[in-house]
């Protein structure tokens, strides 16, 4: 693959005495959408946390944009353009929509182009523009997910990692969100997606990894993976 943006090398991680990830290696190429799928508890979220720096990896390296960023704290990674939209949205519920977006642009690299990014997010999600003065806790689930993605975009990401975007959302909203991601992909944004809606995720992706038991089970193009029975088994148990 040409132009690797994120190179995760033999990552191991866990909590307390429990090791959850073993020797996970994956690559995300510039301008592409990469998907990470796997069963509940397979270690997807742990992998993202270790990459972003919310937990410190026990072994391995995270190389981003050619530099080793393994030990950098999360906020410093944002400064370099490595941005996570976490599972469960994790918004600032007591703050307004606009303030949430403003916080997204907290990093120095993003603050300069605040207005530009704000326009971009509002263009992508007009609903957020309508509700910019509303407290984010009062938004519906779908709007909150839009805001979470919007907040991630405000950070001016080089790579946007999105964890379980469609969780608990009605199909029509999921559809809207995937359309938005498609637009972003069209703009050239690099995306790493963790998603349980395999059909939609694979439809959008250029490359996919399957994680099981804290290890990379297999990888390949989505079209190829979708037809392989062992994928259906590892992921869906079907």
């Amino acid at each position: 693959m040409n132009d690797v943006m994120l190179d995760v090398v033999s990552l191991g991680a866990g909590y307390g005495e429990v090791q959850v990830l073993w020797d996970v290696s994956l690559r995300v190429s510039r301008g592409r959408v990469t998907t990470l799928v796997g069963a509940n508890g397979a270690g997807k979220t742990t992998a993202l946390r270790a990459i972003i720096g919310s937990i410190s990896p026990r072994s391995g390296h995270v190389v981003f944009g050619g530099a080793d960023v393994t030990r950098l704290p999360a906020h410093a990674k944002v400064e370099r353009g490595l941005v996570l939209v976490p599972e469960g949205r994790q918004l600032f519920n007591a703050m307004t929509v606009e303030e949430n977006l403003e916080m997204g642009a907290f990093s120095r690299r993003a603050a300069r182009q605040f207005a530009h990014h704000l326009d971009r997010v509002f263009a992508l999600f007009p609903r957020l523009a309508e509700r910019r003065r509303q407290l984010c806790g009062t938004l519906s689930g779908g709007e909150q997910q839009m805001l979470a993605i919007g907040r991630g975009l405000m950070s001016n990401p080089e790579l946007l990692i999105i964890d379980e975007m469609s969780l608990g959302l009605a199909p029509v909203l999921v559809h809207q969100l995937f359309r938005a991601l498609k637009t972003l992909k069209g703009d050239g944004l690099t995306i790493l997606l963790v998603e349980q809606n395999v059909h939609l995720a694979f439809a959008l992706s250029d490359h996919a990894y399957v994680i099981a038991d804290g290890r990379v089970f297999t990888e390949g193009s989505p079209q190829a993976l979708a037809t392989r029975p062992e994928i259906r088994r590892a992921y869906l148990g079907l």
Partner: protein
Amino acid sequence: MFGIIASIIDGVLVGSVYGLAAMGLTLIWGVMDVVNLTHGSLIVAGMFALYLLTDATGLSPYAALPAIVVGGFAVGLFLYWIAVHRMIGRPPLMSLLSTFSVNLVLVGLGTAVWGTGLFNVPVSLPGLTLQRFTFPGTHILAAVLAGVLAGCLYAFLYGTRLGKAIRAVANNRGAAELVGIPTTRVLSFAFALGAALACVSGMLIATLFPFTVLSGDAYQLKSFVVIVLGGFGNPAGALFGGIALGLVEGLATPFMPVSWILVIEFGLFVAVLVARPGGVFALRRT
């Protein structure tokens, strides 16, 4: 009859200062879940800072305000790194214990240096007299300053990038880190800000009343009541909580023996807590 109105006015004036005193405590509590038991000592530090500054320089007491803000901030930063930083994320009791320990040290040092005797910073400003009742100029100015400072704090928290970052950290520390906010630095800043507020409120109190090294206890206890009335972690609400407390004191006085006011105050405190744990003026919080 006008006596009651006078008591209401007095309650509002002094209540604003109570509110300011509680603001630092509630800010720290709200942002990092730390019950800061050095709060009373910080208030006393502000009192003595005013005493020393006016004594040494002969300046107008109010000219000392910027120096006390800066000094309080520095002391707050120091305390954060000494006693609070390691407690973040540990059970809430631990920070309570560490600040309790530091408070012992501070009170011990204060007693060793100044004893527990009386100190007074003479300030005279023309007052306002209505019928037989006079409202001292110091009280009016202190209330105005408390209001202005509360307004500044509000403007800071809701209008500036750093202020919003503090609110973001209070709201969801994990998410704040994820959007690129250096949370540890923000926490230390918020603690220092809370400490500076406590010092400033101490300074204003010192312009109103004589004080001793041990005066902090009473204000710390009052601050707890104010926080409950004003809403947890809601610095702007603290001003209203303080005024509410001042009003309770002012309004109850004409109607009952003074010594029963504390019974009313704490009865109300517990009742409000049990009925509305978030406080009367609680804003929406997650």
